[in-house]
């Protein structure tokens, strides 16, 4: 098929970006979206132009590296990662807009590449269970009800791609933070730090340049792993409980 692409080009954070037009012929519907961009980049290199920078790595939907705004939707028309989107979701003659994630919390590095290190800092603030290597009891010491284990797993499938932030009109990272609070808060191992975790992670999220959550739900609608809005309810529940108990040490 033939396609017109309108792609965000921005050489560096200091330089203002703009949309640029490219025409592609001979795109196969079995190509992945990123393979389509590979083909364009090969052509750009041979023409002596700068290829389009975009993050990607595993190309099987699990590493969370890739993420593009495609026609204004995070990861495009299917609810999956950009790397798992295939060109059979488009039609001959289409014009496709491709932009980076846009949020104050994700500054542009180049073209379609953004800096998502804010997510690492949110995890660093409390998204863990303190279990130094070598201290663990036998794995069967604490049975976990299957329903809790399964719900924890559902939340733990978050890949940290940032689509939730990109889709949110407020640019909020709430779904990302809530997924981790839910994953760890549902497990018996996660209980001792449950109050401190939610307070610190939310504080870090607020310290980054993300907006607040107003329960719009765009995040969950584009999440490639289908993380549910229930995680946000759970975060709010845990946060209120922790603040009410005033049980959080300050450091």
């Amino acid at each position, binding site marked *: 098929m033939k396609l017109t692409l309108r792609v965000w080009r921005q050489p560096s954070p200091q330089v203002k970006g703009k949309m640029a037009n490219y025409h592609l012929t001979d795109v*196969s519907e079995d190509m992945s979206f990123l393979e389509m961009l590979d083909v364009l980049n090969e052509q750009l290199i041979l023409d002596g132009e700068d290829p389009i920078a975009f993050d990607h790595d595993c190309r099987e939907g699990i590493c969370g590296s890739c993420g593009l705004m495609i026609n204004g939707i995070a990861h495009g028309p299917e609810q999956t990662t950009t790397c798992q989107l295939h060109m059979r979701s488009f039609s001959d003659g289409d014009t496709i807009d491709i932009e980076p994630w846009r949020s104050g919390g994700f500054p542009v590095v180049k073209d379609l590449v953004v800096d998502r290190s804010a997510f690492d800092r949110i995890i660093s603030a409390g998204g863990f269970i303190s*279990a130094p290597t070598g*201290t663990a009891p036998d794995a069967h010491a604490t049975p976990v009800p299957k329903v809790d284990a399964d719900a924890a797993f559902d939340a733990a499938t978050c890949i940290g791609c940032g689509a939730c932030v990109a889709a949110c009109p407020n640019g909020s990272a709430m779904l990302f933070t809530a997924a981790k609070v839910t994953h760890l808060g549902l497990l018996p191992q996660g209980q001792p730090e449950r109050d401190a975790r939610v307070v610190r992670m939310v504080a870090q999220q607020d310290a980054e340049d993300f907006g607040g959550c107003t329960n719009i739900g765009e995040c969950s609608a584009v999440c490639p792993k289908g993380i549910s809005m229930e995680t946000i309810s759970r975060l709010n529940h845990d946060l209120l409980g922790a603040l009410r108990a005033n049980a959080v040490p300050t450091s």
Partner: protein
Amino acid sequence: MALELFLDGDPIADTKAPTDVPIGERWSERKFRGKLVNPANRRKMTVIIVGTGLAGGAAAATLAEAGYHVKSFWFQDSPRRAHSIAAQGGINAAKNYRNDGDSVHRLFYDTVKGGDFRSRENNVHRLAEVSTQIIDQCVAQGVPFAREYGGLLDNRSFGGAQVSRTFYARGQTGQQLLIGAYQAFERQVAAGGIETHSRTEMLDLVVVDGKARGIVVRDLVTGEVSTHIGDAVVLGTGGYSNVYYLSTNAKGSNTTAIWRAHKRGAYFANPCYTQIHPTCIPVSGDYQSKLTLMSESLRNDGRVWVPKERGDTRAPQDIPEDERDYYLERKYPAFGNLVPRDIASRQAKNVCDEGRGVGPGGLGVYLDFADAIERLGRKTVEAKYGNLFDMYARITGEDPYASGMRIYPAVHYTMGGLWVDYDLQSTIPGLFVIGEANFSDHGANRLGASALMQGLSDGYFVLPNTITDYLSAAPFEKVPADHPAIVEAEAGVKAQVEKFLSINGTRTVASFHRELGRLVWDYCGMERTAEGLRKALDRIPEIRKEFWTNVKVAGDAHTFNQNLEHAARVADFIELAELMCIDALHREESCGGHFRAESQTPEGEALRNDEEFAYVAAWGWTPEGEPPVLHKEALEYEYVHLAQRSYK
């Protein structure tokens, strides 16, 4: 042959494993004999760790918890992206929670046998011992393994074993284990124990007075080249499957860190031992950028078959039962569809070579779930494998519940890597290598669900206990910034960057990578012959020459430039490919994933030659145009007796 291709060097041996005590006591004994570092001194020592996968991430967290100052480097945007995340099926551990006869000794035995008797017994036994601690550790961190209704952990079976010892988290076990390690890592970042260097690629090793003391890195965003010095350097940089261009590895996975350490004196062991995974989604076109694996766990319930007649183009549903050949069940009744990966892959190749392959180009076999769906119900199959079925449907546009899957083998893992001793130290003192980047535990073939086990074993439990013996002599003397070793290494890195940008030829980096990958796949892939390997060895130097005179690299050196990153990686893959082919040519036997057509049993199975080849081939680097030097480490089997593998 020896004269033209390589030179014979001195033999090499591990001297760290205490072989004067029985194998079950060696790990405890080694930890006892090794020197320790007092907690007050640890904070004065810097350990550089490259890579944040299961091995590197776990090691960084654990060493920081112990009090060392860790500097961590990775090329992706976050430490959570490392390719360990893509592992699907599970992780082995000798817990014997199923009460099905499993034990440390049985896991040890299965792994040595599965590796076709080309791994080191001491290392494998330790791996089996440590396996149980890994599960405990991960559960304590909150890794949501699959559980049964009673709340206890569930298990599944994997290839090469007759017990159920694989722990899993749906089809995303690697992701969950890596997130566990990543969270422990981030906890140490907050505590100040780990200094982080994101989007930073190691491009050389700094060796001072014979010791690994640092690395030269390039900041991938700004292009700045700088040097970091420490008391020890640890590489957890993964495998080199992307030498084949098409593999199941992430696009960024590369050999550069270990290859450049090799060029500084670290021996490279068994480079030709590569694993071809039997169950991947077949190639669909020339634009293909990577291959996607379908977890081996699918072989628990899926049945592999092809039509009995060649050229049968009917849809799979239309082919009656008696016209199908379930060739794995037919040839290996004891293990059936769960034979080890090397065997499953080669048998798929054989039936396709016979003209019975299915799908475009005849390069595919069916993995059929009709029986499982009838026996267990679609719901159960969905619960077990739903995400894999979805992934298959998304990539191929076909419904695997209705028509099964088409699969074909693809390169997945490399057993070869930098040579290490029992302490995981390379031939350069102070350079430690962990996870897939080293060679030590899987021999000539890795069993399923053992990569995660090894990565975490090395990272959480082995390295943190062995590196202390080396660090007991640290902190070492300061290395001034104008030290000749630093100046020379940085200049080399900068010169290479400038060279790439100045060639301005007519072919892209990717076109060279594709050509190289195709060549290595054809001649050093599932089946190797002396004739084919010689062809490859004639062609690789030509590719190398053309690459360095005709490649076109876009952009400049001072901004984010992914094309430049790729160029440096491909340059190293070209050099590595040559060593792989030399290694494959010199090993005139078949073993595990290394199948030499000249060495097979009458039934077409791999035929080892233990008389001549029961050794690890550890290669020393020599400059271009000079043959590499072969150092042999003799392999002795005290506890598992050498035997022809049989899965019939």
